[in-house]
C-alpha cells in the first residue's frame, strides 16, 4: 500500500492503494466517480478513457505507482452542466444508445479534437474505431465530432 496523491477534476485526492492498482479503480472505487467505465481492463475497449492535459488516456492502463502528482479529467469534470461542445453535439446528433461506452467515446473525441481541430472523416473513423461501441453508434459519433469541431473552431476565431 502506498499513498497516491493526485488530482481529478481539479480536486486533489490522497488515497491508499497497491502500486499496481489501475487509475480506473482509483477513480471508480476510491473516489466513487462511476461515470468512467470498465469494459475490458486490458486497454482495448476505451470505456475507461479520461483526459490528461487534454490528451486521451486509458485509465485501466495507468498503474497507481505512476499516478501521483498527475491531474486527470473524467466525464463528470468535462463541464459542470453538460455544456462542453462535445456533450452538446452528442445530444444534438442523438448519438447515445445504451450509453455504456459513451463517456469513454466523448473523452476520446475530446482528445482527438485537441490534437486535430479539424479532423477528416477518415481520421475520426480511425481514432473512434479503436474504441468499442457495441451499439454501433459510430456514424452518429462522426457527425457529432464534426459538429463539435466546427463549434470549437468558430469560438476560437
Amino acid at each position, binding site marked *: 500500500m502506498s499513498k497516491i496523491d493526485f488530482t481529478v477534476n481539479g480536486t486533489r485526492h490522497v488515497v491508499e492503494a497497491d502500486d499496481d492498482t489501475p487509475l480506473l479503480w482509483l477513480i471508480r472505487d476510491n473516489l466513487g466517480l*462511476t*461515470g468512467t467505465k*470498465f469494459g475490458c481492463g486490458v486497454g482495448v475497449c476505451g470505456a475507461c478513457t479520461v483526459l490528461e492535459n487534454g490528451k486521451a488516456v486509458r485509465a485501466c492502463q495507468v498503474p497507481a505507482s505512476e499516478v501521483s502528482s498527475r491531474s486527470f479529467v473524467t466525464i463528470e469534470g468535462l463541464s459542470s452542466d453538460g455544456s462542453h461542445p462535445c456533450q452538446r453535439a452528442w445530444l444534438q446528433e*442523438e448519438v447515445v444508445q*445504451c450509453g*455504456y461506452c459513451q463517456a469513454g467515446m466523448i473523452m476520446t473525441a475530446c482528445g482527438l479534437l485537441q490534437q486535430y481541430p479539424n479532423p477528416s472523416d477518415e481520421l475520426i473513423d480511425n481514432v473512434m474505431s479503436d474504441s468499442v461501441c*457495441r451499439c454501433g453508434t459510430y456514424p452518429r459519433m462522426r457527425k457529432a465530432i464534426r459538429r463539435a469541431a466546427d463549434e470549437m473552431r468558430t469560438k476560437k476565431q
Partner: protein
Amino acid sequence: MITSRRAFLKTAALSGASLVIGFDGGRLLQAIDASVAGSFQPNGWVCINSDGTIILTIGKCEMGQGVRTSLAMILAEELEAEWTRIKLLQAKPSADSDLGTGGSDSMASSWKPLRQAGAAAREMLITAAATRWKVDRGSCKAVDGAIEHSASGRRLDYGSLVADAAKVQLPENPPLKNATDFKIIGHRTARIDGPDIVSGKARYGVDVKVPGMLYASLERPPFLGAKVKNLREDNARAVGGVKSVIKLPRGIVVVANSTWSAIKGRTALAVEWSEPPKDAFDSDAHWKKLQTASRETGFVTREEKPPSGTGAITKTIDATYYYPFYAHAPVETMNCVADVRGNRCTIWAPTQAPERLQKQVAQLLGIAPRRQSSDPTSLVAR
C-alpha cells in the same frame, strides 16, 4: 423514495393528492381510496401528483433501445401532457408478474394499455374540471398538462385537478386519439436519458455501491463441462485484500475487498482447464454444416404476393447472410450486486428478466419472493 407498492398506493390514495390508474394486460384499474389499495396490484401504473409531476411505473428495462423515452411519449400523447415531465420508475418484480423485456415487444405490448391509461386519465381530468366550472365537459379540452375552457378563457393545471379526478368513475373505453392528431408519436424527440449519459450521471448495474460491500471476480470455464486441471489457490489467497476463494460447479470465484484485489486474485489462480473433447462445438464445422444444409432441398415457410400495382421486376438481389455464433457481449461486463440481510435480499442487476432472477435467488436463499413491503429484489437495469 417509494419503498413498496402498497405503501405507495396507500399514501397516494389516502392523501387524495394523486390520480392513480393502473394497467394489467388489457385491464384498466383505478385506485380510489385506501379500501381498494389492497386489491389494486397492477403491473404498471400512471400516477399524476398534485404538483403536476407524472410518474409512470412500468417493468420495461432500458438497454439502449430507448424504451424509457418511447413509453413516456405514448403516455404523454394520450394524456396531453408535456412528455419531458414524465418520470419513469422501474416496476419491481413480484411472484405473479411478468416484467421481462425482450423480443422487441415493449412497444407492441405497452402501446394499447399505455394509451388507454393516458386517455382515461385525460377524460377524468376533463370531467373534474367541467364539474368544477359547471360547464359542459364537451366544451373543455386537455392541452399541454392543463384543462382549458376556451369560451371563458379558464385553465386549470392537472395538478390542481387530480384530487377531484380521482373520484371520477374510470371510463371503460376512453376515446383514443386519431393518429392524424398525434403531436408526439411519430415526431422526432430526444432521448429522455441523453443528458445523464453524456455527463456520466446515468447509473448502470456496475455502478451500484453498498457500504462495506465485497467484490467478486468469477473465472468461467472455457467450454461447458471443462474440468479444473490445475489451480494456484494459495497464490490467489496471498493477494492483498482477497477474502476467499470459492469453487462453483461452473467456475471459481475470488472474493476481495476491492475490485482490483478480486481481479488480481483471479489472475493469480492461473487455472488450467481440461482440453475440450474431440466432438466439442466448433465454429468452422458449424458454418460448414449450415452451408451444406442450405444446399439441400428445403420447404417454403412463407410466401407473399407483391401488392397489386407493383411493377415488373427490374432488379434481382441475390445475397447470402451468415449470422455467426457470437457471444452476446455488451461492453458492460456481466455484473450484479446482492445485499443479503437476515431473510431479506436486494439485488441490483442489469437484467432483462428480473422476476426470473428474483425466483432463482429466493430459491437459493430459501426465502419466499414476496410482492409487498418486503419486495426482495429491485433492479437497476439499463
